[in-house]
């Protein structure tokens, strides 16, 4: 081990290898509750060559590697593995090029998501994926998790914006996949293999992203409901009416209270649920869609629909919404969040199930999520030190997953499998498709060096 560390220090410099307990403990977890594991060391390479060299050295020692961006992941993806090296990519933090003629941006993997969006905005362009964590998460982490955001409904998720990427393979080889072409069918779409691969197939070091023209205008609406079902029904009705707003975010009563407690922006505390709705594009279309959504919400039982006065107010609402998950942690010591996603026609059923399960197991659940994507985050507020309650939490989660799959949904819409959802994954695959996925991993990473034990064993 000493030998390995010395070799790593030679590559990245002594001060870029952490090995003391006081340095390592803070890297023992990501944004996921309960999971933690100490790393042997944390390495901070400065560029792709150093990444490749680090991989080479670790491979020669048979030491596993866990790739890490900002550690905001919600499935334990960047939680270290025992006696493994953590490779943290925050020093690869340069935006390399913005190409206004082809509408692309090229950046190293450690760039913060919001910086990508801001840089694009400076050129009058738009990078839509905006996960709640965008001020902290890295673009590499977003690609590795195929993260969604508040605008998924109209603009899709990270995958829809990746045109190319560079990855370091477990062998230490550096590969580039993709280009600036709108169309490209030369060979397999290899980049797509790495998107959402959670650091198990390669280390993504550089990305080429698609940008859009900035929408000319936007309008934000806030609708209050006296039941969660009414909100869910509104979402289904909006989709059915062929309106595709960019945002349809849902917050239940518990979540609204926590967010209001933190942000103090005057959210309606009496409502059982609220929908944050946003439409963007041509001003005439925006006006028309806003009107339609208001009517549909009212028809489905909205008690109140407010229009944000201006873009700043809309942005304030969106920012408050982004704090929802963390704000829920105000109530109880441990916050366990799920990521169930169902076809949008089934939302009402799923919402009802979450309530019913919560009541039956006597648990406090706050639910919020990207309702327009059918993606809900039922969040169980509990205490990891209460064994009895944790047992019920486990059972409740299980039931919710089973039900989501029954409805044709998935156990995770955007947070990935990592460690947290690993046990539930086989349920969602057929035997042969699960085996195929594992054999793919073995082909690319025969020695199981990259993020072993994540997604599957």
């Amino acid at each position, binding site marked *: 081990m000493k030998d390995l560390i010395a070799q790593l220090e030679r590559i990245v410099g002594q001060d870029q290898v952490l090995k003391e307990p006081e340095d390592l403990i803070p890297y023992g977890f990501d944004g996921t509750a309960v999971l933690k594991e100490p790393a042997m060391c944390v390495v901070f390479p400065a560029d792709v060559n150093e990444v490749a060299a680090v991989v080479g050295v670790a491979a020669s020692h048979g030491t596993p590697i866990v790739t890490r961006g900002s550690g*905001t992941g919600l499935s334990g993806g960047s939680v270290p593995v025992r006696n493994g090296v953590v490779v943290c990519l925050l020093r690869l933090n340069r935006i390399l090029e913005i190409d206004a003629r082809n509408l692309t941006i090229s950046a190293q993997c450690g760039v913060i998501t919001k910086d990508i969006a801001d840089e694009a905005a400076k050129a009058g362009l738009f990078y839509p994926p905006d996960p709640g964590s965008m001020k902290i998460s890295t673009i590499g982490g977003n690609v590795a998790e195929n993260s969604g955001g508040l605008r998924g409904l109209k603009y899709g998720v990270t995958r829809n914006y990746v045109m190319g990427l560079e990855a370091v393979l477990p062998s230490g080889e550096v590969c580039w996949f993709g280009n600036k072409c709108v169309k490209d069918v030369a060979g397999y779409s290899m980049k797509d293999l790495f998107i959402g691969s959670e650091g198990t197939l390669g280390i993504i070091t550089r990305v080429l992203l698609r940008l859009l023209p900035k929408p000319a205008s936007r309008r934000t609406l806030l609708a209050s409901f006296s039941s969660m079902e009414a909100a869910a029904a509104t979402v289904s009705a909006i989709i059915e009416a062929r309106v595709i707003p960019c945002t349809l975010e849902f917050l239940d009563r518990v979540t609204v209270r926590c967010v209001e407690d933190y942000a103090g922006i005057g959210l309606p505390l009496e409502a059982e649920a609220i929908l944050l709705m946003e439409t963007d594009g041509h001003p005439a279309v925006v006006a028309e869609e806003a009107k339609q959504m208001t009517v549909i919400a009212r028809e489905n039982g909205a008690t109140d629909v407010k229009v944000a006065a201006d873009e700043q107010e809309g942005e304030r609402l969106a920012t408050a919404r982004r704090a929802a998950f963390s704000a829920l942690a105000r109530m109880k010591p441990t916050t366990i969040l799920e990521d169930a996603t169902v076809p949008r026609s089934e939302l009402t059923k799923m919402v009802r199930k979450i309530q019913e399960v919560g009541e039956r197991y006597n648990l406090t659940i706050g639910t919020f999520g990207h309702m327009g994507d059918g993606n809900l985050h039922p969040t169980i507020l509990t205490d990891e030190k209460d064994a009895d309650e944790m047992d019920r939490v486990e059972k409740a989660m299980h039931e919710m997953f089973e039900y989501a799959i029954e409805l044709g949904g998935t156990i995770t819409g955007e947070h990935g499998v990592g460690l947290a959802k690993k046990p539930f994954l086989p349920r969602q695959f057929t035997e042969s498709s699960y085996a195929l996925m594992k054999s793919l991993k073995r082909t690319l990473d025969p020695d199981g060096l990259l993020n072993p034990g994540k997604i599957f064993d």
Partner: protein
Amino acid sequence: MTKPVPQARRTENYLQDLDYSVLQQCMHCGMCLPTCPTYMETGKEKNSPRGRIALMRAIADGELSVSRAFGDEMYYCLGCLACVTACPADVDYARLFEMARAETERQDVLNRPSRNLIRRLTLRGIFTRPRLLRAVGRLLYVYQAAGLEGLVRRSGLLRLLPKRLRELEPLTPRVCRTFSDGLIGEVEKPVERRYRVGLLTGCVQDLTFSDVNRDTVDVLLANGCEVITPRCQACCGSLHGHNGEWELAKVLARRNLDAFDLDGLDAVITNAAGCGSHLKHYDRLLAGDERYAQRARTWSNKVRDISEWLVEIGIRRPQVAATPLAVTYHEACHLCHGQGITRQPRDLLKAIPGLELRELKESTWCCGSAGIYNITQPAMSEKLRDRKVDHLRATEATVVASANPGCNIQISAGLVASKGRAMAVHHPVSLLAEAYRRETG
């Protein structure tokens, strides 16, 4: 949704005694990371709120012992509380950080001769003894006024001091000729009384900015407040509370509680952000003290920052012709993060006819003063100071307004070091006082 205020018990370890839920409250989401000045400089988790809390939790869990590296980290933290503003999960970082430093001191892991000297001289020495502090101040004044500074600097006498203290010498603030007691009457009455308030003169404020105290009284009088200023007040104890001297902080708090006749006062006013955020927590500090707990609660309810109080009672707009003045506002950490006061100082400034308020980029980012941080961590402190000065200069304002003596000393030093166009640094209340003075001509 209010949680019971946790109290440290009298046993082994401040962090282990702390109600575990305070530590558990951090769900390691990382939302605070981009607001933490030390993390943003180094990019290492250990230097972040989330990382520091993880270390504290490891100690509470018995996975880590209080080591020198741990202690160093707790002092590398600025205590700026930007993470508290950012945290949606309501983590009580202020509390955690004070406990962690107190534990570091209790276990004495940072024992080093030069550090001990600085702490003995400052925290245990002069800052607990108002008369001694003034005597030192008096000496400093003579030293500076007589031009001895240059002489001593040239003579090389300073080389006799330990290195850290030597580096500090240029940072020593300019001392005022007269302290507050000489400038302010024990009782000052307005023409028409609406309220009666007490004034805390603060030790650094008193020493180096006693004119700010005078200005505060003038502004209070101009707004119908009778001002009671007890003589020779004790330091509020914020430096002690933030630097692990928990017991000393309690002693000082009791002394202040004794000095004021609370029942007769509508409010107790402070104009130093760093003091204010500590003063408001006397209730918590003395919660376990049978004799003082009740008084401390009343006290905490009555303490107001000067801008907070003025906006609460309604600021009388000075009746003077508008004089154009471009001002930018730096937010002291312990005002914006520690007390959540951001709007009121701006309202106060905007009440001044002709004053143009130019918003400052990163206005809530720590300037690196942070109590005695600029003494204990000169390198990081200087980085933050320069970052602040760059933004200040970019506003092209002529005046920097800021409501904390430590910040004002730090920023002034930074402006001088950066050698650009001159920019004056004032407490907002001084600008307002100046406007009232113009009324009477």
